[in-house]
């Protein structure tokens, strides 16, 4: 299932963000009458159609997989946390409907309505992401039920469950990441095209628009990350300890940049340590006590190395994107947005948004292990006992690889075939 989610998140993020860009482009066209904007919107819409279709089917896969792979999880918790999934279904339905209108109705519906349809797509995409993320928040801090005998929850309160502690932090972080990753990826495509000699004004405008959105998100994201980290420090100390490589409980814990955790020796080596840094970031108090993995039973430790390394990767990507955003802003003021050096930097940085998304999800999901529902249900107890699950797994992997490959191929062809 992790493979499906890793795949789906890319398409989902694009599905959330791309409609925003399309709608902005169309809005600019309707405001200014400039045909360049309309052409940009239409080009983006072709890519959207392909990606949305693939994202949609991968979403179907996930809803089925919840039952196929995690029947115990659903049997026990469905009545508590199933609700946001149902809501997400409605949001997705709305998005699909209005996307159908937007993609196919350029000349069939009035322009104002067409723009409205685009806005609905963007809004319902964000709503979908919102609802689904709420489910994940709950897994990290389960509330909204009374533990009953035999593990079955009593008195489910789905609304309380939906707004579990930390929901605002996680939702913000996820939404920003979708817009940011998509923006940088799109910027990279257009930058590459300019480097290859495409001269159309479309690309310059696309670059400006995507870098603006991406840059704003890139600057906001570390702030959001700070809120999220403090939330994790409160609710999931084992996860924080793992991602920071904090083996021993200590006051005034240092922030470790880089470094490789050594689980046998219970230390994180080769890190650049900033004294008091972690206590400061996690609790806004340089002498706060940070709980280490020594307070967690050994069998309940997450995979410290993976979680820590992924966290470092995510942050590094974020820093790179901030740097390129600032450089781009400076270059734009000097009228040199299309300087080859900057364009190359943009291309280099363009996949990092999605790398950060994948790394970040690894941190949060692997960091919660061995729990599927923090401190309440173990992942091993929730999985299906279906024999031969390997077949299902490999079938899923094969399908996704195929979908990914073909959509990449089609997108490449689409881009190559358009002129200018």
């Amino acid at each position: 299932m992790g493979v499906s989610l890793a795949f789906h998140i890319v398409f989902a993020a694009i599905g959330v963000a791309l409609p925003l860009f399309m709608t902005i482009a169309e809005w600019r066209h309707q405001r200014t009458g400039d045909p360049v904007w309309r052409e940009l919107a239409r080009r983006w819409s072709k890519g959207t159609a392909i990606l949305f279709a693939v994202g949609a089917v991968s979403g179907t896969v996930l809803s089925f997989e919840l039952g196929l792979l995690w029947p115990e999880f659903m049997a026990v918790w469905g009545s508590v946390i199933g609700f946001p999934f149902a809501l997400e279904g409605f949001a997705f339905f709305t998005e699909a409907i209005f996307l159908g209108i937007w993609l196919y109705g350029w000349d069939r519906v009035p322009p104002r309505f067409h723009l409205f349809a685009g806005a609905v797509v963007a809004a319902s995409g964000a709503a979908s992401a919102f609802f689904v993320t709420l489910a994940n928040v709950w897994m990290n801090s389960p509330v909204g039920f009374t533990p009953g005998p035999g593990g079955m929850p009593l008195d489910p309160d789905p609304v309380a469950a939906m707004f579990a502690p930390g929901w605002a932090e996680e939702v913000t972080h996820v939404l920003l990441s979708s817009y940011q990753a998509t923006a940088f990826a799109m910027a990279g495509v257009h930058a590459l095209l300019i480097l290859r000699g495409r001269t159309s004004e479309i690309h310059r405008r696309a670059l400006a628009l995507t870098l603006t959105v991406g840059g704003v998100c890139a600057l906001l994201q570390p702030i959001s990350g700070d809120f999220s980290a403090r939330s994790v420090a409160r609710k999931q100390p084992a996860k924080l300890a793992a991602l920071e490589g904090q083996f021993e409980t200590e006051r005034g814990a240092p922030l470790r940049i880089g470094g490789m955790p050594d689980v046998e020796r219970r230390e994180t080596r080769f890190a650049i340590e900033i004294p008091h840094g972690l206590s400061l970031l996690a609790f806004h108090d340089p002498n706060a006590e940070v709980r280490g993995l020594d307070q967690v039973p050994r069998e309940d430790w997450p995979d410290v190395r993976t979680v820590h390394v992924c966290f470092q990767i995510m942050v590094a990507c974020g820093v790179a994107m901030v740097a390129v955003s600032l450089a781009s802003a400076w270059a734009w003021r000097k009228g040199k947005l299309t300087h080859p050096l900057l364009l190359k930097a943009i291309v280099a940085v363009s996949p990092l948004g999605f790398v950060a998304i994948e790394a970040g999800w690894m941190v949060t999901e692997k960091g919660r292990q061995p729990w599927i529902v923090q401190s309440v249900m173990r992942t091993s107890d929730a999985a299906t006992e279906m024999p031969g699950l390997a077949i299902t797994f490999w079938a899923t992997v094969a399908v996704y690889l195929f979908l990914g490959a073909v959509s990449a191929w089609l997108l490449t062809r689409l881009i190559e075939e358009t002129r200018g």
Partner: protein
Amino acid sequence: MADVVAAAMLGALILYALTGGADFGGGVWDLLATGPLRAKQRAAIDRAIGPIWEANHVWLILVVTVMFTGFPRAFAAIANALHVPLLLLLLAIVMRGAAFTFRHYDRGGARGTRAGARTPNRWGIAFSIASIAAPILLGVVIGALVSGELRANASNGWIEPWARRWPLLVGLFTLALFSYLAAVYLCVEAKESGDAELAEAFRRRAMGAWVASGVLSLFVFLQSRMHAQRVWDGLRARWMIVAVAGVAAALAIGLLWTRRYRVARFAAAAQVALVVIGWGASQHPWLMVPDFTIGGAAAPPATLRLLIGALLVGSILLFPSLWILFRSFKGARPFSPVDDA
């Protein structure tokens, strides 16, 4: 309250059959397109499905999510017992969706559907095979659910409970029904775009599929006596539903015969809806015979209340939106060229 949620699920399934089911049926005719008009047939199917297919298939996601929120233990047991056909159904839906979109954007395919190529391209074949497999698998799942062979304790084995005559028969019946529905819809589409010849082609197919579904429905009914006792008893107890379905079927064929396609469409849709209702009614109150009833598997009242509330609010948003979508593309005006890639 649990009954309300179950009824909503059935409603969603009906809508899925009438929309997504017809989409699958369209895929069947795509494969079976023959004769001098076959390129035009394929183009018509492509145009008909294009704007709406993604929305159509969300009904299934709704059924799944409502089920695991409202009837979690039953959901888990069904997912366990029917792991294989559900997985295959999933693969078919995925392949179908991807193939349809890719065909639209693959250079060869786009030329093919527009300019009238002789043979379907590679995506077309994948699309058609998946379109045939999905309804069969859906029927298999439903057939297995009513057969009484599935147990909740995960002792079912991989293949045994569903790869039998009865579920496969239901699968074939489902395929015939969806194909029939699609053909009737396509008659309307063809006529509205002014192509009388094309309409004739689909009319013949619709009538043929009507006969096929009729024969299969009889088989299903008779076989249910041995294999799905609930259905046998339930349908005979609720014979009114069967009777009305029969009337709808008779109306449909009559209207097809006299080429009154727009009204025939309603009759055919009513007929299919009544088949689904008949199934649901005959199975009531069982979700999975014999271990789960609607009441027994239901989530606590708080969850059900919220779910019903969400369904209401969702419907208020959804149905007008769907109406707008269909109106934009299926209005009374002749079908002007949709903006292709």
